Structure formats: structure tokens, C-alpha cells
């Protein structure tokens, strides 16, 4: 979804039961990496996150999950949890990269409860309330 006020894109994450909503502001390139995958579009050439998936497949490394771990000063932090040769490790990532990878590897996306609590600030709620259906562009389809 495009945010005309900030000239940025927003990824909307929801809980399975639709009870929780977590919107994350991301850049244009990151948004297109996510929406390409959501829409099942494969680009004529491997995009950056497709290359990462090829790399993971090549070395038989599995993405167990991605977790949105923290929110500080309107910036979200995430970790990608991987399994490689029977050992687990995690690497720091921006949420946009983590989500783009999760969608390509069919790994689950989690948010820590504390993050969900933190993000319910008034400003945001108001912004969301003012949203009209027309604001949802092609990226949300």
C-alpha cells in the first residue's frame, strides 16, 4: 500500500485471527520485492531476494522463521532464523528483507508481543482510521 504523505510504502501484517495489525513502513524497492512475491509474479531475472533464496537452496540452508523483534523510534528490527547443517543461527535484518525472504521460502512471520503493544500509538491509529479504501493501491492486491 502506498503512503502518499510520506512517499513510502506500507506493508500490512495481520495475525491469523485478524485481531492484530502491524503496519511497517518500507522503501519502494523493498515494497516491490514483497508485492512481487505476494502476487506470485516472477521477474524475468532473479531479483535480489530471489538470489538470496537460490543461495539458501544451493547450500541447503532452511529459513525456520522470521521475527519482528523490536520497535524503537519508529524503526522496526527483525531477525531471520536459519537452520544449516543441524545448527541454528539468526541474523539481523530489516523487516522488509526478512518478510521478502519469508514469503519466498514459505517461512512463518512472527512479531514479538511487545512490538505489537508498542506500535499502538495514537498517531498511527488516527492515521489508519482516516484511511479510505481508495488509498489501497495495486501493491495491496
Amino acid at each position, binding site marked *: 500500500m502506498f503512503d502518499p504523505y510520506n512517499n513510502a510504502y506500507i506493508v500490512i501484517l495481520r495475525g491469523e485471527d485478524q485481531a492484530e495489525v502491524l503496519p511497517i513502513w518500507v*522503501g519502494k524497492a523493498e515494497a516491490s520485492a514483497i508485492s512481487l512475491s505476494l502476487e506470485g509474479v516472477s521477474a524475468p531475472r532473479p531479483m535480489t531476494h530471489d538470489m538470496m533464496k*537460490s543461495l539458501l537452496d544451493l547450500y541447503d540452508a532452511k529459513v525456520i522463521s522470521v521475527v519482528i523483534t523490536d520497535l524503537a523510534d519508529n524503526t522496526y528490527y527483525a531477525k531471520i532464523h536459519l537452520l*544449516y547443517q543441524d545448527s541454528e543461527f539468526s541474523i539481523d535484518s530489516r523487516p522488509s528483507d526478512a518478510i521478502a525472504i519469508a514469503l519466498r521460502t514459505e517461512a512463518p512471520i512472527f512479531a514479538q508481543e511487545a512490538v505489537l503493544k508498542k506500535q499502538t500509538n495514537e498517531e498511527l491509529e488516527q492515521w489508519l482510521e482516516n484511511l479510505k479504501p481508495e488509498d489501497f493501491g495495486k501493491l495491496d492486491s
Partner: protein
Amino acid sequence: MSTPTPQSQELIELKVHGVVRDENTDTQIVVLRDEQRSEVLPIWVGLAEGNAIRLAQEGIVTPRPMTHDLIRSLVTHLGIQVRQVVITDVKNTTYFATVYLSSKGVDRTLDARPSDAIALALRMQCPIYVTQDVLNRRGGANADVWLEKLIPKKTDTQEV
């Protein structure tokens, strides 16, 4: 000795000379040059890809890991060495690249867009090569003329 290396596969090492914004389109141009500066290879890339290359070239560390920094930490965690990247082919104006990886004595290759390959090479400090064949077939006369006019002025401002 069983793998023949045709003349056209001769590799030339290139360095990133600069990243230039193309004012006419929403793209950037990565200008690669060889050590002797006798060859120039311009490659058009997207805005995000151009930025990923510029950040690495200028040694800027961002507060949060950008996509190619993430790839670097992934590669490092998996114990993989990135040995070299090679620009292997050009069809019309589209370039193709291969990333050469090595882990525990086993060599593997990964297809990539040149922009990703270069952004990764700069972060892994591995050499960037182009085949002689690609250099021979690069761009058209028009692009050369266009670049000759553009480069001296634009790269100066970029590199200050």
C-alpha cells in the same frame, strides 16, 4: 584440463569507477573500468541497486543492514567464500553475471544480476571480472558517444 577455455572467455578485471545518476530516466549507471583505464563498461541499474553499490564503494555503514549487507552476513554465517564475480553475457542491453562461491573446497556458482553481483563483490572484497566477449559486444556506438560527453562532468561531482 578437460574444461577448454575459449579465447572469448578471457577475463578482464574491472573496478567500480563511479555510480552516475541518469537524469533522463529513473535509473543509475554503474561505470566499471579496467586497471589501465582503457576499457569502460557502463551498466544501467535501478535506483536501489545503484545506491547499494554506491554505499559500499564509499564505505558508508548504514545504521541498519541493507539487503546486500544481509547477504554478506548470511554468506559469512554459512562459511562461504565469495571468490569472484563475473559479468558473463549481454543480450540486447541486459547484462548477466555469475557469482563464484567456495565452501569447504567445493566450488559452486550462482546466477545474479550484475548489480547484485557488484554490490556483493564490494562488500566481500572480491574481484569483479568481465569476459572479453562481453566487452567486445558492449553497448552501441550511440551509448559510447553519450558516455563520452557525460562521464567527465558527472563523475567528478559524484566523487567529491
